[in-house]
C-alpha cells in the first residue's frame, strides 16, 4: 500500500494537472459541452449513471479477460511453433501479416456469417489483435539466447526441446513480457472493437449509442473506464514480470542503486 503511494504519486500528479488544465480550458475558451465536456461533468455522469451502464462494463471486462487469455496463449503457441518448426517459420509469415491487415468491415460480415452474433467471433477479433505482438516479441527473444549457454546445452546432449525449455524459453521471458504489455493494452481496445461485430451490451455499444445520441460526456465516461482497465491490466503484467523474472530484478537493483 505504501509502495503504491510512493510509486503512484507522479502519475497521479500528472493526471491531476491534466484534468485541471482540461477543466480550465473548457471554461476559458468557453468550449461547448457537446463538443468537449469538462472532466467534472464526465465524473458526475460516471458516478450518477453507474447503475445504468455497469452491465456494459462487466460485459466488456469479461470479453477482455477471456480474449486476452486466449489471444496471448495463441501468441505464445504460434511463436513456439514457428520457432521450433523451421518450415512453419518460413512459410507462415504472409498469413500472420495477413491476420493483422484484414479490416474489420471485411472481417465483421464474414465472422458473423460463419459464427453468428455470439461471443466466439468477438474472441477471434481480440485474439487477432493480441497474438501478434506477443508472437513477434517472443520469436525475437528465442533467437537471442546466449551463445555460450547454447553451446553448453548442445554439448551436454540436450534435445531441441530441452534447449527450448531450459534455455530459450527462460531467456525469452523479458521479451514475452514486453509483448504481453503491448497486448494487454490492445486487448481492451480489441474488445471494444469486437463489439462492432454486433452486440447488445458492452462499452463499444455504449459508446456508439452515446455517440449517436450526441452525448460526449458518456463517451468520455467509457474512455475513462477503458483507460482505467488498460492501466490496471498493464500494471498487473508489470507486477507479474517482477515476480517471474526475479533473477533479473535483482541484477537491476544492483546497477540502478548506484548513480
Amino acid at each position, binding site marked *: 500500500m505504501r509502495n503504491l503511494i510512493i510509486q503512484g504519486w507522479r502519475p497521479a500528479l500528472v493526471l491531476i494537472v491534466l484534468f485541471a488544465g482540461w477543466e480550465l480550458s473548457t471554461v476559458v475558451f468557453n468550449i*461547448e459541452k*457537446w*463538443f468537449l465536456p469538462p472532466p467534472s461533468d464526465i465524473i458526475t455522469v460516471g458516478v450518477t449513471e453507474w447503475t*445504468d*451502464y455497469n452491465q456494459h462494463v462487466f460485459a466488456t471486462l469479461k470479453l477482455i479477460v477471456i480474449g486476452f487469455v486466449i489471444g496471448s496463449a495463441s501468441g505464445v503457441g504460434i511463436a513456439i511453433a514457428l520457432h521450433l518448426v523451421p518450415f512453419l517459420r518460413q512459410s507462415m509469415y504472409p498469413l500472420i501479416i495477413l491476420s493483422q491487415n484484414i479490416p*474489420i*468491415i471485411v472481417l*465483421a*460480415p464474414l465472422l*458473423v*456469417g460463419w459464427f*453468428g*452474433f455470439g461471443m466466439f467471433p468477438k474472441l477471434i477479433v481480440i485474439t487477432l489483435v493480441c497474438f501478434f505482438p506477443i508472437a513477434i516479441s517472443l520469436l525475437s527473444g528465442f533467437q537471442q539466447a546466449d551463445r555460450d549457454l547454447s553451446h553448453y546445452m548442445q554439448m551436454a546432449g540436450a534435445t531441441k526441446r530441452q534447449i527450448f525449455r531450459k534455455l530459450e524459453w527462460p531467456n525469452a521471458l523479458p521479451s514475452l513480457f514486453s509483448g504481453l504489455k503491448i497486448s494487454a493494452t490492445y486487448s481492451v481496445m480489441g474488445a471494444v472493437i469486437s*463489439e*462492432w*461485430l*454486433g*452486440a*447488445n451490451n458492452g462499452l463499444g*455499444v*455504449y459508446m*456508439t*449509442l*452515446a*455517440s*449517436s*445520441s*450526441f*452525448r460526449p460526456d*458518456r463517451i468520455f465516461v467509457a474512455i475513462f473506464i477503458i483507460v482505467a482497465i488498460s492501466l490496471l491490466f498493464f500494471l498487473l503484467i508489470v507486477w507479474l514480470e517482477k515476480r517471474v523474472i526475479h533473477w533479473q530484478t535483482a541484477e537491476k537493483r544492483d546497477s540502478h542503486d548506484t548513480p
Partner: protein
Amino acid sequence: EDNTENSDNESVKVVLDWTPNTNHTGLYVAQAEGYFEEHGLNVEIMLPGESSADQLIASGQADFGVSFQESITEARAQDVPVVSIAAVIQHNTSGFASLEEKGITSPEDFEGKTYGGWGAPLEKAVISSVMQQENADVEKVDIVNMGDTDFFTAVERQDIDFGWIYYGWDGIEAELRGTDLNMIYLTEYSDKLDYYTPVLATNETMIDEQPEVVESFVAAASEGYQFAIDNPEQAADILIEAEPDLDEELVRESQKWLSPRYQDDAPQWGHQKLDVWENYAEWMNEHDLLEGEFDAESAFTNDFLPKEE
C-alpha cells in the same frame, strides 16, 4: 424484461441499420407490447456493428432488418437477394443542412460552399440534381470527405458549410441545442429523390420458404408503428425504456416530429409504390451510379402488409 420466451414461437433475428433511434420505435413497441409474441414470433433485435444490415439479411444471419431504398437498389443490382417489405417513413426526411448564418436557403446557394460527406459518388449526383433545378453548377461546390466526423463538429468549426442529415434526428438535436439550421429537403427539388428511407427488409429465401413468418413480422411491426403514430409520447417512453443509454429528450422530441410522418399520405403504414422504386433507379442510371441490372418490381412487395378490413 417481460418477454418470456415462448417455445412454440418462431425465433427470428432483426438487425437494425445502426444504433437504435426513432426510426425503429415501431419494432421496439411491438417487442415491448407483445405484438410479436401474439403473432407467434420470438424476436431478438440486433445491432449490425460494422457489417451492413443488407449483408446480414442476405446471408441469413438475420431474418429481417432495417435498410434503405438506395442500398437495396445497389444491392440487388449486384444480385444480393434482399427485398423491401415495408416503408418505415413515407417520404424522404433527409436534406442538406447548414447553419442559419450561412444563408443557404436554396440549392443555388451551394455554389462556392463546402459540402462535407462520406466520399460516395452518389452525393455529388444528388447535389447536382437539386442544383440543376436552379441551373446552378455542382462543379462550384467543394466536396470533402469528412469520414467519421460528426456533422455538428464540422459545421461549428467552419470546416464545411453544409452536410446531409436526417431532420428527424440530427435536426431535432440542433433544435435542442438551440442551433438554428437551414434545411433544404431533397423532396422539395426532385421527385425522383423522394425514395423510401428507411425500409424493413428480408431475404428472398424467407419470402419463398416462410411467407407466414414474414407476414406475422410485418403485421406485428405494423401494429407497433401504428401505436407510435397514435401515441408518440408513450412510444418514446418504450424506446427509452428499451434503450436507456439513448438521450431521453432527443428521443421524445424526435418521436413527436416523426410519428405523423411514418404513414403520412399513404393508404396504410408501410405501403410502397412501384414508381418510387423505378424513378430512383432511373435517376441512379442517369447519373451512372448503378452497376448491374435492377428490376424494381422484385425489389419490394406490399404483399405482407395487413389487409384492410
